[in-house]
């Protein structure tokens, strides 16, 4: 594939394919959840219709909000996820596109959604959003450390490189997930994934029955559609990231496509099951969970991995 075609493909997949796939994943999530709860569930186009409907609605901005930041935040979050997605797609299509340190850049862009929600909510001037923003901040503080620690085994496995393509090629003989340290780190990554998605049991920042939506309570119309899209894309991008780093990567041709689909389904099932068999934790309990349970687990994974290499 020559240079220009490649980048066009990456941008189309990153900015267009990811939202479409993300919304599809969101539908699967909603549908399976409905079935678990003895409901019928929405038709497959419901998530797309939701976005279209929101795009056509009025954007209401509170007089108390600082308008610029309030409206810029959803764009920031959306772009952050899109760029992270585009980079993962690039590596999936052509490992040559990987550059030194792209793992760090992806991790960096994956913080954007939380950051955007915090910024937007703080700018909205609503007390509910303010409390939601403070909770989201605490969440970021709680889960970022174990997340980074969980990435140490893949990095060591690839010989101490931050390059996604090398992390992938190091897994060509054996997937990292089936090694001891890899499995521990994978478990930590699953917990962090749930928190980054902001779904039960880690949906304190939104908590509709406590904060009426918390960080997103003040949004309406197109900005809300962007946030909705951003969350749906995360539902695709985070599993893709986890698969790339721990589970042999995404393949787009032949049997590889099938195995990739199976991997996505497994991760999605884990997310949906976790979210339907747990109540929402309190924010202090979440922080304790990540600091005193997930972080030690991630450290253990690092230690095991250090001994192995």
């Amino acid at each position, binding site marked *: 594939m020559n240079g220009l075609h490649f980048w066009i493909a990456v941008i189309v997949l990153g900015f267009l394919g990811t939202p479409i796939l993300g919304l599809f994943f969101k539908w699967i999530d909603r549908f399976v*959840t409905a079935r*678990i*709860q*003895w*409901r019928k569930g929405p038709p497959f186009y419901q998530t797309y219709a939701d976005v279209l409907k929101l795009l056509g609605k009025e954007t209401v901005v509170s007089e108390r909000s600082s308008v610029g930041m309030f409206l810029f935040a959803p764009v920031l979050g959306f772009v952050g996820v899109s760029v992270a997605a585009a980079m993962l797609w690039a590596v999936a299509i052509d490992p040559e596109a990987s550059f030194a340190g792209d793992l760090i850049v992806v991790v960096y862009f994956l913080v954007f959604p939380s950051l955007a929600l915090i910024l937007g909510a703080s700018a909205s001037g609503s*007390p*509910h959003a*303010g*409390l939601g923003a*403070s*909770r989201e901040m605490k969440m970021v503080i709680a889960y970022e450390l174990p997340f980074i620690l969980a990435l140490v085994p893949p990095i060591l496995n690839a010989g101490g490189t931050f390059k996604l393509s090398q992390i992938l090629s190091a897994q060509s003989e054996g997937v990292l997930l089936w090694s001891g340290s890899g499995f521990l780190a994978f478990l930590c990554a699953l917990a962090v994934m749930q928190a980054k998605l902001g779904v*039960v*049991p880690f*949906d*304190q920042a939104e*908590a*509709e*029955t*406590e*904060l*009426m939506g918390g960080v997103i309570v003040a949004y309406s119309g197109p900005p809300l559609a962007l946030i909705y899209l951003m969350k749906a894309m995360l539902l695709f991008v985070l599993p893709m990231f986890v698969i790339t780093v721990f589970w042999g990567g995404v393949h787009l041709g032949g049997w590889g496509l099938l195995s990739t689909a199976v991997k996505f389904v497994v991760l999605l099932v884990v997310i949906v099951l976790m979210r*339907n*068999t*747990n*109540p*929402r*934790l*309190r*924010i*202090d*309990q979440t922080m304790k969970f990540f600091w005193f349970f997930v972080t030690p687990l991630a450290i253990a994974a690092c230690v095991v991995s250090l001994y192995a290499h």
Partner: protein
Amino acid sequence: MTHKTLIPIGPYHPLQEEAEFFQLYVEGETVVDMDLRLSYNHRGIEGISETLTWDQVPYLVERVCGICSASHPLAYVQAVEELAGVEVPERALYLRTVVNELERIHSHLLWFGLAGHFIGYNTVFMWAWRYREPVLDALEIVTGSRVNYANHTVGGARRDLDEEMVRAIRKCLDEIDKPVDMLTTTALEDPILALRLKGVGVLTEEDARRFSALGPTARASNVPIDVRRDDPYAAYDRIEWEVQTTPNGDVFDKVVVRLLELRESMKIIRQALDDMPGGPIQADVKEVPAGEGIGHVEAPRGETFHYVRSNGGPCPERHKIRAPTYNNIPTYKVTCIGQSVADVTITLAAIDPCYSCTERMAVVRDASSGKYLMNFADLVRLSQRKTEELRKKC
């Protein structure tokens, strides 16, 4: 940190289906004080009641609460029966017991589901409501309606049970037997539920007595009060059952006590169906003499109390209703202050509140002269003026 934030819950909030307003004063995540405002929903039921005949009132008071729609009419008809000295036939007493216990089952299942929803556990919400469905079906078969049963009349019951209805009730009980066990096990054994609910919103036994809490709210704090046992009505004194209490008074115990009561209710219904005597279901009531009467019934949320006064005419001269939530609301301050915002929402819901049943009317009076400062016409004028101002702004 001394910076206080105001977090409003209400007047319209996804937490509860009714209009109510809690102003939480929050430091960080901790609630340090709260204000409570009710009366968004005054419906003037006591006033309407005084314009209806004795026979019509039960159909009005069952609309006090969509969920306690067997308890309020029963309390009312008991008040009238006491006033008129009516001897209710034995079979009618058993019929009343059956309908009221079915109501308790559906109400407790409804609350259990909602409690799950409030802490983000929507699977519990949907499952509990699904298992509540057969109970509503049974109520429909027995009384003709899923919500407003219209089954209690002064002097007896409106509808008799035939063989088929008895079979339907038994089938419903068998159907929910296992699910109720499953829900109970889930609630007792789920470690994360325990993490969220244990030690949250504790109402001590002392406070429960001090605020005269009622129903499951009091029984969860180890105060064994239950009108069904303390002043038996219907057929409760002819049936073997136990008052359920739990010792700790936290939200977890309020869940458990309700689940235990579900079992007890099922036991009561089964016995009532087994022991039900034959005979008429309606006593002949000719007139209601002048005098006063009271009736109280253990509604799913606690004791509901009705007072009626008659001057010998066709309508009640005065009809006073006190729903159980009225007594349970004052416990909010002691249970909520010091909790985090996340815990306050479930603590508020744990008394299974019914705000519109509780509504009182407020009158603004001059303290010295006792004159009304604002009457209905003034309020209408005020409202019109405000609307006019708003219109000008737009």
